[in-house]
Each structure stands twice: as C-alpha cells, then as structure tokens.
C-alpha cells in the first residue's frame, strides 16, 4: 500500500468512527443513567434519517439536520414519559422488551409514512465535492464528519462536567438511588437524558443522509453496531465510546484496504470479544455500581402445585392434539413446542442463573447445523442426529461460556452476542461445509416421523421431557447453588460454592437444550440457513422469556407459545403486523409488568 492510500484509508476510518460515535453516545448516556438497554436507539436513528430526507427539500439540508434531531429528541421524551416511566419498577429486562416493541412499531410507522422505497438524501450544500489530498480525493463531507465527532465529544464532556445538570446526570450514573435520596428529581432527569440520547441518535441519522439512503432495515444494523461500541468502550463512558468507535472504524477500513473484506462481516464482534477477554469492563468502563434492591433477588422461585397440575394436564391434552387438530394446527404446535424448549433453555440461564444472553441462537443454530450436517454429510439417520446434535451445541456452549462467565451483566450478554455473531459469520461463509448463505436443504425425517402427527408426538415427548428436566433442575442442589450464586455471589462463595463453575455448567446445560430445540426445528422445516443463529432468533428467544416472566418457572414456555402464535396470527391477519405485534407487547407489558405468568400470582395475591 502506498503512503497516500494509507492516509486516505485512515481518514475513511475516522469518518466512520465519527458517525458510529454519534449514535453510540446517546445509547451510552441513556444506559448510564436509566440502566435501560435501549433497543429502539437504532429506530430513533432511522427516524432521524427519514425526517431529514423528508425535510431537506423543504427547508434545505443544513436546517433539516437540527430540525430532525429535535423532532426525534421530542419523540424520545414522549416515549420515556408515556411508556418507559411506567415500567421502571418492573424487572430490568422488561424495559428491553418494551424498547423492542418500539422497534416494531417505529419500523411500520416509517413504512406507512414514507413508503417502501429507499430514500437517498441530497449532498450537503457547500460540502458536496472532494478535497485533493495526497494524490487522491477525499469527500469534503467526510472531512467535516472527521472534525465533528471530537467536537460533539467535547461538547458533551463540557455539559457533563461544567453544568449543574451534568453533575446530576453523573451522580445518577454513579448511584441513582443515592442521587434520588438526596432529592434529585428523577422523573425530570430521566426524561431529559432520554430526550438528549434520542436527539443524538436523530442527529446521527440526519447527518448520515448524504452518505447513506434512509431505508427500513437500517434500525437493526445501527443498533448492533452501537451496542458493540458502547460495550467495547465501557458502559456509560463517553470517551470510551469514542475510543471504541475509532478502533472499530480503523480496523474495518484497514480490513478492506488490505484485501480482507470478507472479515468485515463480523470483525467488530471479534474485536469486542478480544477486548472483553482482557478488559471485562470495556476499554474505559468501570465495574457497575451495585444496584440496590435487585429485582431478581427479591422473589424466591415458586412453582405451586396448581401450576404443576396445569402443566401436567396441558401435556396430556397436547398429546391428544393430533386427534383433534388439522394438519396446520400440528405444524404450528410443533413450532410452539420447539420454541418453548428454546425459551426454557434460555430461561435456565436468565432465571436461576441470573445471566442474560443476547446470543442464545448460537446454540440453537449449533444444534440445527450439527443435526443437518450429520444427516447430509455423514448419512446418519435423523433420529440419531437429533440425539447427537445437543452434544455439539453443549460443546459450543462450553467453549463460549468459559469466556462469558468471567464477565457480568450487559458485558456478558454482549459477549454472548459476539460469539453468536462469530458463529453466524462462519456458518454464513463456510460454503463447502455449511452451504453458506443458502444453508442446508433436504433434511426430512424418515418413515415413522415423516407424518406431521408422528413428528409432533416425537417433538412433544422430547421437548416435554427436556422442559420437565430443566424445571426439576432448578430445585436440585445444582439449581439451588446457581440461585444462591445469582442472589449473592459473595455469600455463595463463602459457603463453598464455586460460583464460576456453576455458572459455566449452567451455560452448558442451557446450550445443550437450546441445541436440542435447534435439531428438532431443523427436521420440522426440512432446511436450515444461517438465520437459525442470527440476531433476530436470539432476540425472539429473549422476548419469549421476558414476555412469559423471567421470575416464574413455567412463564417462558407460555411466553414462547404466545409469541409464536401471535406472530403467526398477526402476520396473516394484519397488514402492519409488526406494529400490531409491538403494540400487543406494549399493552401486555404495561398491564402485566411481571410477564404473562404474573397474572396468576397477581390474581392470587388480590384474593
């Protein structure tokens, strides 16, 4: 590479870093103060883009940018005041579910308002051309972004360190209960921070329009990138987010420059995994302040006799389903069972284990691919492949989990996501083995299981036994040690429980059953592709668990059934089904902050 090429690629990296930082900064601020993992941040960015593209011909580009940012900021304030404020008392992850529902609603709202076609914004007036630089050409607008990133960082830094409001924000980031006890008006502070974060997301989106068309898929792309930056930099740390943006921007630019463009599919996750392995709190992060009164620790795990009886009766009824239901009913029920098992396996990590995973699809996919490869490449019969596949998934879980259990909270969750993304990119690109982006095709079980009813009974038996085992395990000495480690790691260590070893074992168990769900899924569909281990699959599992209630025993199974049925039903009956699904989730959350299974306990306590 020539010196000029190196310089220009370095500048490219800086420009990408600036745009990454703009969107990550808001996310980091919001998390720092309110502990909300704002899934809708990418959607706010997308709205900023659409608003700016729509406004630009009417007001001119340079006025459209601040207007769009303001509009998104106002929307953020409204979302916080009308929705999120109601559920701060709910378990922490419930807020994640609420913001996920917002993602669904906002995407359909944008489709309704601006239509389906991609909208490329105008070039920025005054900065449309290129600078002649070292024998090459570098766009003026990108040079502007290179300068803007550090300016925004400096401005935020000043606000946070030199104004009274900034001091309050930092106080709340350090210890929000203490800040509240000292009389800081939390409501106002939270709303303001959320609005500022949303404004930054909107600004990032508006400033992106000369480089990138507004399109409907951008929300999820942006949110994963932003999460990576925020976690890599250290949650709540703006300088950390800036450093992380620089690192990722430059690494990507030089991957492309040096001819390793295929690596860019997952390089940010590789970087994040490497950094987190060495620095468990990110580049500039600090261990999180202890949350006083953890919602999870509050309730012991109850599995009342009535709930058990209901489950047993349901299992018996389900066994009769093939006699009563049509063929499609069985297809849907099989899906529900598979996802119920998948959700139950994730719940084992999240509930008793207290470890949220954003990448549980890795094990679902590992099981599915192991089963598929055994059948297609090794000629093993489907039944044997289903038995063997969970072991492959458990192996993957053991390898990934070894690293993950060394971290805590959102850092751990993001490391699970990183591993899932790395696994996904391997499945996606290893054409010869995994069939690449098309996946493996032609996985149908043979004779006794070939019929819908046969496969349904088979799935019911395996998934039922597995779920019963997982539930039973919560009350075994292992499960109790795990819960002890969740509620008080220090005390658990003191009475001789090896916390890390138990957590690792929980990872392997969850991976094993996630893999079983994946294998069952593969043969019910006849084909699998990398989507079985992609982000949306992990998010779905998370939503199912949260919808059902992470603190109950059987909740996630109900959550999975409800979510599967809802997405099937809504997709068929409602034109804007994403928005409908999102709205349904929002209503459920506001009405039942403890999840679906919370209805029973609430009803009981009200008697």
């Amino acid at each position: 590479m020539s010196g000029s090429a190196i310089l220009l690629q370095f500048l490219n990296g800086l420009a990408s870093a600036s745009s990454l930082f703009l969107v990550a900064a808001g996310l980091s601020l919001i998390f720092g103060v309110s502990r909300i993992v704002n899934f809708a941040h990418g959607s706010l960015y997308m709205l900023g883009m659409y608003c700016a593209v729509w406004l630009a011909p009417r007001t001119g580009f340079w006025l459209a940018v601040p207007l769009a940012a303001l509009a998104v900021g106002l929307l953020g304030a409204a979302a916080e005041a009308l929705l999120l404020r109601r559920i701060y008392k709910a378990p922490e992850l419930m807020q994640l579910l609420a913001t996920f529902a917002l993602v669904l609603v906002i995407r359909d709202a944008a489709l309704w308002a601006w239509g389906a076609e991609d909208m490329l914004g105008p070039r920025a007036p005054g900065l449309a051309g290129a600078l002649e630089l070292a024998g090459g050409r570098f766009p003026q607008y990108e040079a502007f972004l290179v300068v803007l990133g550090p300016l925004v960082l400096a401005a935020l830094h000043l606000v946070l360190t030199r104004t009274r409001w900034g001091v309050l924000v930092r106080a709340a980031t350090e210890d929000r209960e203490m800040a509240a006890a000292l009389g800081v008006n939390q409501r106002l502070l939270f709303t303001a921070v959320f609005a500022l974060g949303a404004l930054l997301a909107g600004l990032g989106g508006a400033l992106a329009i000369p480089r990138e068309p507004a399109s409907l898929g951008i929300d999820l792309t942006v949110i994963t990138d932003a999460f990576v930056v925020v976690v890599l930099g250290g949650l709540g740390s703006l300088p950390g987010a800036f450093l992380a943006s620089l690192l990722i921007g430059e690494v990507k630019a030089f991957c492309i420059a040096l001819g390793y463009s295929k690596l860019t599919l997952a390089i940010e996750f590789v970087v994040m995994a490497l950094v987190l392995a060495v620095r468990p709190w990110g580049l500039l992060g600090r261990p999180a302040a202890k949350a006083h009164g953890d919602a999870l620790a509050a309730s012991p795990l109850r599995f009342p006799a009535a709930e058990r009886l209901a489950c047993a009766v349901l299992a018996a009824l389900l066994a009769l389903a093939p006699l009563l239901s049509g063929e499609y009913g069985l297809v849907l029920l099989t899906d529900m069972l598979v996802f119920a098992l998948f959700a139950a396996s994730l719940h084992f990590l999240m509930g008793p284990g207290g470890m949220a995973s954003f990448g549980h699809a890795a094990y679902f996919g590992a099981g599915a691919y192991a089963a598929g490869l055994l059948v297609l490449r090794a000629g093993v019969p489907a039944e044997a492949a289903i038995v063997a596949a969970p072991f492959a998934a458990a192996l993957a879980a053991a390898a990934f989990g070894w690293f993950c259990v060394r971290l805590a909270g959102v850092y751990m969750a993001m490391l699970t996501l990183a591993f899932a993304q790395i696994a996904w990119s391997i499945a996606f690109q290893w054409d010869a083995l995994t069939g690449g982006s098309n996946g493996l095709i032609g996985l149908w079980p043979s004779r006794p299981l070939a019929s819908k009813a046969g496969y349904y009974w088979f799935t019911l038996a395996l998934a039922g036994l597995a779920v019963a085992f997982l539930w039973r395990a919560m009350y075994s000495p292992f499960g109790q040690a795990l819960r002890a480690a969740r509620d008080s790691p220090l005390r658990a260590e003191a009475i001789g429980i090896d916390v890390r070893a138990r957590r690792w074992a929980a990872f392997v168990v969850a991976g094993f059953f996630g893999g079983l769900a994946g294998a069952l899924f593969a043969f019910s569909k006849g084909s699998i592709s990398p989507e079985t281990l992609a982000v949306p699959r992990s998010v779905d599992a998370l939503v199912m668990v949260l919808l059902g209630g992470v603190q109950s025993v059987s909740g996630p199974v109900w959550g999975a059934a409800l979510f599967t049925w809802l997405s099937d039903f809504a997709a068929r009956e409602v034109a804007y089904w994403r928005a409908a699904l999102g709205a349904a989730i929002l209503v459920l959350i506001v009405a039942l902050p403890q999840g679906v299974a919370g209805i029973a306990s609430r009803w009981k306590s009200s008697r």
Partner: protein
Amino acid sequence: MSMRPFGILVLALLTGTSFAQSNPIKIGELNSYKVFPAFLEPYRKGWELALEEINGSGGVMGRKLEIVSRDDGGTPGDAVRVAEELLARERADVLMGTFASNVGLAVSNLAKQRKVLFLAAEPLTDKIVWQDGNRYTWRLRPSTYMQTAMLVPEAAKLKKKRWAIVYPNYEYGQSATASFKKLLKQAQPGVEFVAEQATPLGKIDAGAVVQALADAKPDAIFSSLFATDLQKFVREGNTRGLFRNVAVFDLLGGEPEYLDPLRDETPEGWWVTGYPWSELNTPEHRRFRDAYQKRWNDYPRAGSVVGYASVYAIAGALKKAQSTDSEKLVDALAGLKTPTPFGAVIWRAIDHQSTMGAYVGQLARKDGKGVMTNWRYIDGSQVQPSDQEIRSLRKE
C-alpha cells in the same frame, strides 16, 4: 334450520356465481413483503393486475382464480410454516412467490416433499434450477448466471485488461462473481482480476471500498451490488472520482427498483441488466404498461412484470392441464409457452427455468433521472450453459 346453507346461498348471490363456480382455484402466494418492500410492493401490484384481468375474462376452466397472499417473514423457517399453512389450511393448489434465495430454496424443498407445484417468482439463485432443482419447482426470472452471461460479451468487447470486482457477500454476489470470472476468462484469455471486495449485504463501507478499488488501478469494474449498497457505492465513487476512465458493469443496476433512487447521481455509461419501462414500446409491453398505469396510477417496476407474468404462467399451466392436480400441472409446464410483457417465454423442460430474458444497456441521465439507453433484449434461451452441463448439475 341451520344457518350454514343459508350463508352459502347469500355468499353465492353476493358474488353472483353459481355453486359450481364459487369454488375457485387457489394460488398460495408467499413473499417477504416487509423485508424487501421496495421490490415486492410493485410485485404485488403486478400479480393483482393479472388476477383481475384473468378473472375479468372468465377465469380458468370456468373457475375463478384466487390468490391467498402471506408475508413469509423473510426467513426459511417462517416461510416453510407459512407454506404449510397455505397448503394445509387454505388448501392451495399451487404455491408461488419468495424473494431471497435461501427462502426460495427452503420452500422449493418443501414443494418437493409435499409434491406440489411451486413457481419461484423472484429468487435468482442458480441452485434452485441446478444443484437443488426438483420436479415441482419452476423459476421465472433470469438467474444470476443468465444475467451475468448477458453482460460478458459486452465486457469482452472492451478488451480491458485489469478488472476489479465488488459484490455483496452472500450467495448471489458470490455466484455472480464466480460466473463472471469464468465466462470472461473464456471470452478474453489473459484478463487479470486485480482486486476483489466482498461487502456485507446492506452494510457496505463505501468510502473504504471505493478507495481500495481505486488503489488497485483497474481498467474496469464488475459489480453485483444493488439497493442501498449500490446507492452508497455510486455516491462515494462519484465524489472520489473512481469511475473516471473506468468501464463499469453492474448486474441489476437498470431495474427501476435500484436505478430510480440514484436520480441525478446516476453514473453515465455503466453497462447494466435491467428493465427500460418507459422506452419499451412492443405491443405486449405497451398494453401491460397502460393497464398497469391505469390500475395503479404508477409506473411498473421489474417486480411488477414478475408478479404479472407469474400469474399468467400458472393460468397457462392450468389451462393446458385442465386440472389442478400437481403432477399434471408439472407436466403441463414443461415446454409451455406463456405470455409476458417482454414477449412469450418458454418453460424449459430440462431445468425448469423460463426463457424470460432481460434488457442489457447503458445508464444515462435524463431530466435528473436515471434511464437505460442503447438497450437490447437478450432472450433467456441464449445465455444457458450446455444441456449436458445442466444435466450433470441437476444430477438427473
């Protein structure tokens, strides 16, 4: 008296059909409407128009056609469930649709398992008619290989020595690149490929990619980028002067879905495959365009043609088979000639690919909009590998 016969009677009166005819032929349609709306909304309008036309002229075999349409969620897992629902609950006689290759292949495999005709309308993957082809699956659009092969003769004519390639990193981009390199090497021995950029779909880092391509100092570029990736690439390339004195070939770049958003950025002189809807004045296209504009108050896109022609193909197969039996329909499609806005196409028995072609031409700007100039139609039958090659690929 039970209400049920009464209800049917009311239904029959309302729809104005007799009992025998009130039983329509059902086409189960599934597509990723929410994932690829830019391409699929015009596609939906296309098939709705065809459906109205066919039913307006009496339907097929004296029965109306009915299309039950579903969103397939954009993933193979969901699509297979949706297809099962269409077959089991809706009792669809035929399946049609899908967009992404992995979804198309998954549904195609289900069609083979359930022994039901599947007309893969949109997927471009070569595998659906080659390695993973099966008796029940038929594909309308010209494949990745066919569209690449359409561009190669023009590329070879320019006698450029140093080629750079940029493609979205998944099966479509990979196989377009592989086919292009293979075919160009045959047509122009001694050609060099000096740079290759595989960009994540929908996430191209355009600045760095354009710079890396420029550093390789190519004489020509072959791209299979489309949608947002294409728009970002074009704008960065224009600003950074990548396209000056460099010939560029872009697969699909002339389809209105991907060309229109470029507007005044449209790079002049690029060779593309596409659909010059405004200038194509054959009688069959003129009739289609007029009807479409009258019905939707909008101009047709490539997807509109696909949706429209797919329904006519199914109607043609039904008419020839005089039955909704899958086996008879499959046999009827073999060698069948059906009308499309691009002229009649033939459904090849050897690989179940239609001979629908595409237009090869160059991009130009006209009144701040992108158009194709200098275009000509290349029939799908002219860009096929040898029958022997196809047979060995299909393992038949």
